[in-house]
């Protein structure tokens, strides 16, 4: 099994195959399975992602009412033709938001790499697929490439907000998406690693401070910005811009920052946005006075 991004990139480059193929081969080996079965499993995950976005675009609201219907607002805004950032980026934003709105409503999603960060990878995929003329096979590959980078992060750092803050979740997801966009656009494995590094560098230090401990505020909007960040990072790498700090070292830095981060900012709802007066008021409205008030 590959242990670092360097090893992953070297394997792909030396053998002249995409990163997605390295991931597929490893999975077939670990599972003692067939290629068809492994690809089929990923196709089913892709279908879950499509269903989640479709549901979000019909409008969905969470049980608490804290989040919902922003994917619809953004989609309508894109249709108005007045957008500034560009339709492709905003499409990713809308679909990342949508996936996380469904997640917040306890709907069914596919974790990528976690549920709280489940919007970034599918949101960007569905936004770039037409521009990059991706068929079903390319879409499935996108998920394997994302997974390959997430695999290294999970084993060398963390993908848990409770252990490493939001940088470990939306940060990792953003890097994963950036790397996958590069491969889908015809970039090299090295450029995928660069895109990952650029994306994660700009998410370092991001804390996990969910209001009332719910995966809603600010998670949904962090997925939106993760999607935008991923596309820009991919474009930077494809333009030939490189990262002075190698990808694996960025991942190590993320891990170190996560360990230094105070517990109050790691999914405990004790600090940051979760500890603002408005957040505390929302929390009391949702749960009543009894719990979590003295913290």
């Amino acid at each position, binding site marked *: *099994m590959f*242990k670092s991004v360097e090893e992953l990139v070297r394997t792909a480059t030396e053998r002249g195959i995409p990163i997605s193929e390295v*991931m597929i081969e*490893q*999975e077939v080996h*670990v*599972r*003692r*399975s067939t290629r068809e079965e492994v690809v089929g*499993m*990923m196709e*089913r*995950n892709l279908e*879950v992602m499509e269903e989640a976005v479709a549901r979000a675009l019909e409008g969905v609201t969470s049980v608490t009412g804290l989040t919902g219907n922003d994917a619809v607002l953004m989609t309508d805004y894109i249709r108005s033709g007045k957008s500034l950032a560009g339709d492709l980026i905003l499409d990713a934003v809308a679909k990342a938001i949508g996936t996380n709105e*469904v*997640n*917040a*409503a*306890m*709907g*069914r*999603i*596919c*974790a*990528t*790499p*976690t*549920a*709280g960060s*489940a919007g970034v*990878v599918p949101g960007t995929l569905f936004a770039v697929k037409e521009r990059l003329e991706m068929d079903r096979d390319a879409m499935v590959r996108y998920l*394997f490439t*994302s*997974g*390959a980078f*997430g*695999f290294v992060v*999970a*084993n060398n750092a963390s*993908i*848990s*907000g*409770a*252990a490493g803050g939001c940088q*470990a979740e939306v940060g990792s997801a953003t890097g*994963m998406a950036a790397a996958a966009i590069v491969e889908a656009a015809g970039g090299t494995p090295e450029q995928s690693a660069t895109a990952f590094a650029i994306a994660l560098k700009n998410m370092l230090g991001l804390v996990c401070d*969910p209001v*009332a*401990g*719910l*995966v809603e505020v600010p998670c949904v909007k962090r997925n939106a910005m993760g999607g935008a960040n991923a596309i820009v990072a991919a474009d930077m790498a494809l333009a030939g811009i490189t990262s002075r700090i190698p990808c694996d070292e960025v991942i190590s830095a993320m891990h170190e920052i996560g360990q230094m981060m105070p*517990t109050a900012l*790691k*999914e*405990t*709802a*004790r600090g940051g946005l979760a500890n603002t007066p408005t957040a505390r008021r929302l929390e009391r409205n*949702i*749960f009543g006075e009894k*719990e979590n008030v003295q913290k």
Partner: protein
Amino acid sequence: MKYRSVFDIIGPVMVGPSSSHTAGAARIGLMAGKLFGRTPRLAHITFYGSFADTYRGHGTDVAIVGGIMGFDTFDLRIPQALDIAKQRGIEVVFETSDALTDHPNTARVHLEDEDGTFEIVGISIGGGTIEITELNGFPLKLSGGGPALVVLHHDRFGAIAAVTGILARHELNIGHMEVSRHEKGKQALMAIEIDEHLSKDVLAEIERLPQIERVAIFGE
């Protein structure tokens, strides 16, 4: 390596909102329910760390109870699990503890009925992946280097040989193995890490052995 599969990263398919606090909790519950092997009369669940602080908002409570009843991470009945448990006659008690644990997402699940009790401690390490650190008071030290077979059995001669014999016949190599017991002749535990994927047939074969109480597999 803690994560072995791309589907630990792109997956699981699950009911929201949190892979560690919802899907991971469901999997801890599933493991407890499967090893208990029947519908409990009482489920006493203790949450530590981040689980204790945020369990209601993340649906950790409904997910772990759903898991105990056999609901997988993607089961759309999870949000209603507490009502369903009541209908099935399961008394559910939640407790939060500020005791320090090695991992922030830790849960202790205690199940009982008139025939016995069962307890596991699980940690949810991110993305829905879990580890079981304690089982009926037996500490589990699995490296996570491969799938692990956990076997609860009667402490009697031949039990270990019978299980490892089946593994040998299926050409499955053991990477690491631990055996422990509380008292001579009572319940004992085997934790066996295997290098290869373990099929359901092998699991069923082990489960049919006379000395064996329960079998479960981790890290698949």
